Each structure stands twice: as C-alpha cells, then as structure tokens.
C-alpha cells in the first residue's frame, strides 16, 4: 500500500500538523512515511501545503507532481492542486471560502464542512482533526487507534487530555463527509 497525499490550505488551518499526525499514525502501523512541507514566506498568513506519503515500501521521492489524494482547504489551493490528483484519485475539500468548486469528473470528490463542525464543537482548533476524520472515511489508510498513538507522539504530554476531544472531532468528520462525485468518467 502506498498513499501519496497533499494537504493544502491557509497557514492557520493546521495543515502541517495534520500531515504530521498522519505520518506518525503511519509509523504506528509500521509503515514508511515522509512529510514534505512547502515552506517559505507563504507561511506568513498565505498558503501552506504538505505532501505526505505512507507506504509499506521504502519511499523514493518525497516530492511529487501527482497525488492519490488531495485535501484542499482554500480557493488558492483548489486552483493549484485540483489538476494534481491522479485520475481515479480522491479530492476532499472544505467548501467554506471555496468559490469555484472542483469540476473534474475522473476523480472522487468529497466535501467536509469542517469549519462549521469545529465551530459547533466549540473549539476551532480541532478543525484539522475533523478534516482527518473525513479523510479517513474516504480513505481508511490508517486505523483510528494508530491515529491516537500518532497524536500522542506529536503532542506534548501535557496536552494528552485533549486526545478525547480530537477523537471526537475525527469521528464527527467521519460522520459528515459528503460525497460530491462518485461516478468516475475516465478517458
């Protein structure tokens, strides 16, 4: 199994840490992982994205042009990465702030209204865990208990008390993934 994933959005949306938790989760199930951020001045309030690869084999290139899955959290990222999903791949996006929705017919497309779900949960910080839930619903590449282990690895111990909240967010995400395009037209 190899999953090549890009997560792209604004700086403050927890894109990098979502990727990191995913990578740690992969490690927990003995996979090879790589996490490759775009870094730079864009971090200053601009866009941020990270390429995460989980694989049962040694990972060669951590930098990719095409992805199995793209998680897209703002319009700029949509403009940039819609076309980077491999035919037959998966695109998951948060419709908030998206004005031009994805149009491709050769990929699976899902929406996750993570902004509102997180608001409803009363904690904006779990936003990225809601996304994680949606993603795992669409692509169960890591098991939930490995995600919990991954969370433990990436959080300082003093935040362990927040893990149940995060798990709840993941579950909310799983429950609220909306399918937009499921019939593939491949040509």
């Amino acid at each position, binding site marked *: 199994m190899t999953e090549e994933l890009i997560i792209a959005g604004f700086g403050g949306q927890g894109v990098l840490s979502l990727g*990191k938790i995913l*990578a*740690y989760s992969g*490690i927990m199930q003995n996979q*090879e*992982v*790589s*996490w*490759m*951020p775009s*870094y*730079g*001045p864009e971090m200053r309030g601009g866009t941020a994205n990270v390429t995460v690869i989980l694989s049962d084999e040694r*990972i*060669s*290139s*951590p*930098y*990719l*042009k*095409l992805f199995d899955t793209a998680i897209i959290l703002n319009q700029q990222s949509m403009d940039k990465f819609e076309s980077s999903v491999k035919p037959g791949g998966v695109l998951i996006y948060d419709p908030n702030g998206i004005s031009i929705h994805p149009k491709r017919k050769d990929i699976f497309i899902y929406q996750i209204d993570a902004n509102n779900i997180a608001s409803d949960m009363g904690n904006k910080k779990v936003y990225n865990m809601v996304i994680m839930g949606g993603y795992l619903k669409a692509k169960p590449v890591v098991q939930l208990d490995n995600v919990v282990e991954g969370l433990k*690895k*990436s959080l300082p111990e003093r935040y362990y008390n927040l893990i149940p909240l995060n798990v709840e967010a993941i579950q909310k995400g799983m429950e609220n993934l909306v399918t937009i395009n499921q019939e593939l037209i491949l040509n």
Partner: protein
Amino acid sequence: MAELKLMKGNEALAEAAIRAGVDAYFGYPITPQTEIIEYLMMEQPEKRTGMVVLQAESEVAAINMVYGAAGTGKRVLTSSSSPGMSLKQEGISYMAGAELPAVIVNVVRGGPGLGTIQPSQADYFQSVKGGGHGDYKLYVLAPASVQEMADFVEDAFEIAFKYMAPVLILSDGLIGQMMEKVYLKEQKPRWTEDEIYKMHNNWATFGRKNGRERNIITSLDLKSEKMEARVHRLYKKYAQMEAEDLRFETIQCDDADYVIVAYGSSARIAQKTVDLARAKGIKVGLLRPITLFPFPKKQLMELTKQVKGILSVELNMGQMVEDVRLAVEHKVPVEHFGRTGGIIHTPEEILEALQQKLINN
C-alpha cells in the same frame, strides 16, 4: 538501542549532534536550516551533555568561532544555507589551510544572490571545487534522507579527525525540511578534557600542558617553499580520502542501459524515475555519489563498459555533470538535466529528459 522518531532532516541532524557528543555549535539563522539551532536551543544541550550552543552575530563570526574551538581539539559544528555559506568561504579556506577538523552543514537554497528559499543543488561547485581561495578541497557528504542527516554527523567528525580537515555535509532544503522516520543512536559521551589532552596534545591549543612545547594553529607560511609543502601535504590527504573513504550507492545498475547520476534530494526523486522507467521497460539505474569529493570516478568509468548514456540530474544548471564527464573521459554521452531557482524536478520530468536527451536522440 536506537530510538525511532519522526523528524525533520534539520532536527535529526541537531539531535544526532547532541548524541554524538559534539562539543559546540556556532551558527546564524537562515532559512531553510534554522531548525538546527532552534532544535539545539530547545533541547538545552548544555544540560544534556554540556554542549555549547551559541548564536553568533553573523556567519563570518560563526565560522571563525568554529575555527577557534576546533583549534583546541573540540568537536565543533556549524550550519548555514547558501548566502551564509558564501560568507563562510574565507573561514573555510583558513580551516583547510590550518588543517582543522570540523563539520560544516550547508542546507542549500536557490541562488544566486538572495534567490529563493526553496531547495537547490546549485552550490555543488562551491562545495566541491573550492568556493574559498587557494588550493584545497573539502570532503563532502551528501545525505539523501533524514536518516542520513543524522548518521552523517558522526561519520563526518570521524573523517574530520582522521584527516585533520573540515568536512562539509551538503544537504538541501528538501532533505532539511522533510520529515521521515529516523533511528537515533544512543547518547555518546563528549570527550573529557583529559581525553582531549591526550589525543590532541601534539597539535591542539588548549594551553601547553605540563610544559610541552607550544602548539600553533595557523595557515600562514611566509616562506613559499614551506607553503608549497603544506599544500602538498593537504593534497596527499585528499588522495588518501579518494583511496579510503569514497562512498556511493548504486540502485539497479547491474543491467542498466542508462544510468542516472544524482545525489541528495535529486537522488531520491530520480529513484522514483528508475521505477517509472522500468515500468515502461527502459532499463535505468541510479548511481548516487554519497561523497561528492571524493567522487566515484572509477565506478562511473566501470559503467561506461555497459551503458549507452549517463544523465546527471541536479537541481542546478549543470555542475556535477562536469565531474561525471571528467570521470568517464567522454567515453559515453553524458547529459545534464536540472531545474533551478528552487524548482524541484518531478520523477516524470526526469524520465522525459532521459528519453529526449539520451534515447530518442
């Protein structure tokens, strides 16, 4: 026992330095390698091992701090990225001349000038041909994974002290910024003062203990005859490095019709190209120089018996390709493919270039 972590290349290098028992780090912030000093400061190595970590006022100051501490027999590390490396060139040349062991890390970004902060391999020439003045060479290690970012710290210090020479770890923004699994070695103790007194008594300047003659660190020889002898001594070491400490890796070269030569991040990306090519039925192999100096000249020459062409893949406008051509003595076609300015080539692009430049040509 080795400890498994998920870390950035920069962080892994910093942690490995603490665990290797490095005595001191001097550096100045610059993207994309600032995590090295940040990680060190966060870890409080002065508490963990007594390691000294100091943020210098500039790269020039930092490299001269390295000179100073290295001259006392301590194991000293510094790191920077391209513009900062240019500023360090005088100091590096001094260290080569004064025969000081130390490890210097360059996490390369795109130049020239301020350029971009994205990954690049455009400092190959500077690293391998000598960006500083005068006749000298650096032993250059090019890590291609987070694991190697960690492992090469100890390796580099070993070489540095074996040859009494500065060693360069030539990484880039991609290897420095990416996270991977890394197995970290156990903590080694720093050398005690007594160990240093014993090991380095014949050259290091820690005070002329027990009435021994004074030791001197210098790169100056006003008498040209002496200076020439010094340079010849250096070049003997370089020859020995070539004979004893060359490192490289070959991937699927055995049956290859074409070979890609690539190091560091390019090697990682090109490795995927090998897979893509073989999936298409094109027999491509990869030779990854792990040391850029010494360079796997013989191994390349050996391959000329078998391959139809060689593609040097670099994140630059064509630098290592010269060394590849010199190595194979123009016996097979050698082409270059590279992106620059911070753009990273994709595995697909590389395959396309290989087909265009070597096969459909």
